[in-house]
């Protein structure tokens, strides 16, 4: 790996799945021939969300749950930037659930990598929206009662155009998917299974390793099939691109953004003058 994206000391636990995701992201950006200043990595708050700190690109570490609104607006403001969100499952689906719903609908051309360790890591082991039924944590002594949220079927049902699952333990495959996701013109979500060695004693590296298999001969243009595949869990877990469909993305709706990014367009004094004079 080139050092263009630099290497920093992290605050992650040894053995954490986040390392592989960070490495994969750096590889991906290299493969895509992107320079650090062309990329903006946005995180919320959490272990995963610390990623912007550990890569030499533009970074924005905002509020817990609020990575998406920051990211899509940054993209809208300067669509020459490659905008990538790296953040946790709690951040994306818990605190940030409403932004998840509505940014699927908005379809801004950003990429959303969810480090899905099925747990709240940074706050030390509460169940997350994706924790399995019955998952015992210090905070759910009788196991989780709430039905786990399936981000993939949810995204599909909201009309997402790029839906994928990956596993931090399959790095090459992850890099492939990351490339496809970043290249996709629109909102792309990749739910990345990521072992948390400190707090998730159920969904361990081995647990995932035993279950994941790479999708083969899957027709990712078929929505019904996509739902089917997205629903597979527990005994077997498919990884790969589950659904992909080309569609207009947010900025396509604005003619004037075709010339150049918003940031490079000024509202002319003449226009303002005219608008003022409308009130005469």
């Amino acid at each position, binding site marked *: 790996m080139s050092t263009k994206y630099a290497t920093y000391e992290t605050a992650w636990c040894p053995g954490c799945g986040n390392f592989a995701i960070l490495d994969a992201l750096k590889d991906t950006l290299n493969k895509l021939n992107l320079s650090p*200043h062309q990329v903006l990595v946005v995180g919320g708050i959490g272990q995963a969300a610390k990623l912007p700190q550990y890569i030499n690109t533009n*970074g924005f570490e905002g509020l817990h749950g609020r990575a998406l609104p920051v990211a899509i607006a940054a993209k809208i403001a300067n669509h020459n*930037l490659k905008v990538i969100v790296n953040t946790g499952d709690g951040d994306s689906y818990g605190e940030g659930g*409403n932004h998840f719903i509505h940014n699927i609908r908005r379809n801004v051309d950003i990429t959303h990598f969810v480090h899905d360790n099925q747990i709240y890591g940074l706050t030390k082991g509460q169940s997350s929206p994706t924790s399995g039924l019955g998952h015992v944590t210090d905070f759910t002594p009788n196991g989780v009662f709430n039905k786990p949220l399936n981000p993939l079927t949810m995204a599909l049902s909201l009309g997402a155009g790029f839906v994928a699952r990956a596993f931090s333990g399959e790095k090459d495959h992850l890099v492939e998917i990351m490339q496809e996701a970043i290249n996709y013109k629109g909102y792309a979500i990749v739910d990345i299974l990521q072992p948390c060695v400190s707090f998730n004693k159920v969904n361990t590296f081995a647990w995932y390793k035993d279950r994941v298999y790479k999708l083969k001969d899957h027709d990712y243009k078929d929505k019904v099939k996509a739902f089917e595949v997205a629903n597979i869990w527990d005994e077997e877990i498919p990884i790969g691109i589950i659904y992909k469909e080309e569609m207009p993305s947010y900025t396509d709706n604005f003619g004037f953004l075709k010339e150049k990014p918003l*940031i490079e367009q000024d509202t002319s004094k003449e226009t303002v003058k005219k608008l*003022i004079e409308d*009130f005469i």
Partner: protein
Amino acid sequence: MEYNVLIGGEAGQGMKTLTSVFSQMIHKRGFYLFTLADYMSRVRGGHNFFQLRFSDDKLYSHCEKLDVIIALNQETCDLHLGRLKEDGVVLADTNVKSNDSRLVTIKAKELATEVGNVRTMSTVLLGALLKLFGLDEEYLEEIFSHKFNEKITNQNLESYQRGQSLVEQKFKTSKGNKAERLLINGNQAIALGALAANMKFYSAYPMTPATSIMSYLVTKAEEAKIIVEQAEDEIAAINMAIGAASVGVRAMTGTSGGGFSLMVEGLGLAGIAEIPLVIALVQRPGPATGLPTRTEQADLKFAINASQGEFGRIVISLNSPEDAFYQTTRAFNLAEKYQLPVILLSDQYLADATQTVNLFDLDKVAIERSIEDEPSSDYKRYALSETGISPRALPGYHSGVVINHDSDEHDEEGNITESAQVRNDMVNKRAMKFSLAKNDIQEPKVLGIENPQILLLGWGSTYSQLKDAVELLNENERRYGALVFGDIWPLPTKKFLDSYKTSEKIINVEQNSTAQLASLIKETTGKDIDLNILRYDGRPLSADEIIEKVLEVE
């Protein structure tokens, strides 16, 4: 010459059209207009009214006494008759009844039906109304044809004529003094200010009485080449504005108290990450949902103290549409100069009060971007500096330079830190630039006599009523003055302290129940106010009411 007309009825009875056509005719003739909007939180029905005060001199506020009431229903007549002057007129359809001799009824509905469009009933009344003031149809066709198709325009013109024929002129009017002036309300002025400041991104979630900023902007978005995004909630709205601002466009959001509550965490993000952000907070009475369509000034201390931790913010309260326009442009400059959030405090009264103001002068508007165009390769987003301000470069434009923003306490490069030393440095840095910002803070506006015997205080939109009140008070005896704060946080105290020394009595006027400005003054200067004139029923204070209370205590 000065008159005051009330047009009232249920929502959905054509009151809005009637008001807007009448307003434009008055305005275009060269009169000055001040419109008060009093409406309920519903779409149809209820009791709503507009008060249209006009004159050949500049007007600053509404007033209570009425010359004409247009009563679209019985309730309007019953509720407002008490405020009608002795020589006033109530104009209504024949279905409105009263023993009062000032009631003049006309067969408006019947005539409108004859014309073929019962919905032009209000235009019959308009015809009669204009006739009362001896005004003809100048501008009428232009205005109607702008609103309606030919058929409906013609029906309206016909109904207007019928109305004109039914009454006689009763009030004398001057010729008017035509000039290029604007007929505009507070929210529209904020929106124009934002456009003049080259704002490129506005994200908001609808909330009365802030919504009309968005509704104006969105209709001009293509023309102005800006993005107006309706967010899924206010949390998204502020975080979007922050995201857009973080890469370098001027960005803004607007809301009322409930939405601002949801933005509080984002406000702190802008504080610590040093993102220039402008927020319009258009107040309405709380707590919580409160009185959604009415007015209050009760979010002042909330705006000043909102969000965990300590960081500088500038709060500018808006005094009038002109002020709203220029201060909005200034807010963007300040936000970028000091890299902090600037809150524009308005309220429903100012937001909805359509009035005649002088043409906004773009030559008075400067756009000061404060952006570092050539960052060196060791550029640091949060570099410590003597002023506390770090040069701000934008991401994406400089090979080899990356920009990091962070909501954690961070080092100069924007990386999370746990160092006590770095923490102290960063807190001090942010405090320092805020301290510096105080140099840009504007002292309150002076009304009436400088350093007067009786000093009135106010902030924000009560400028309107204080302006009129002080003028009238001084007509008897020239010993009144007022200081009306625009910039309100950090609170400028020089003029206040000067006047404090010389004045015999200090009377503070606010649209809230706890006298928040008074407590801010006490907190900042230790000085007490002698008397508070407070109103908190959601209705605006009037100049008359202020005068009455002032004279009462003297």
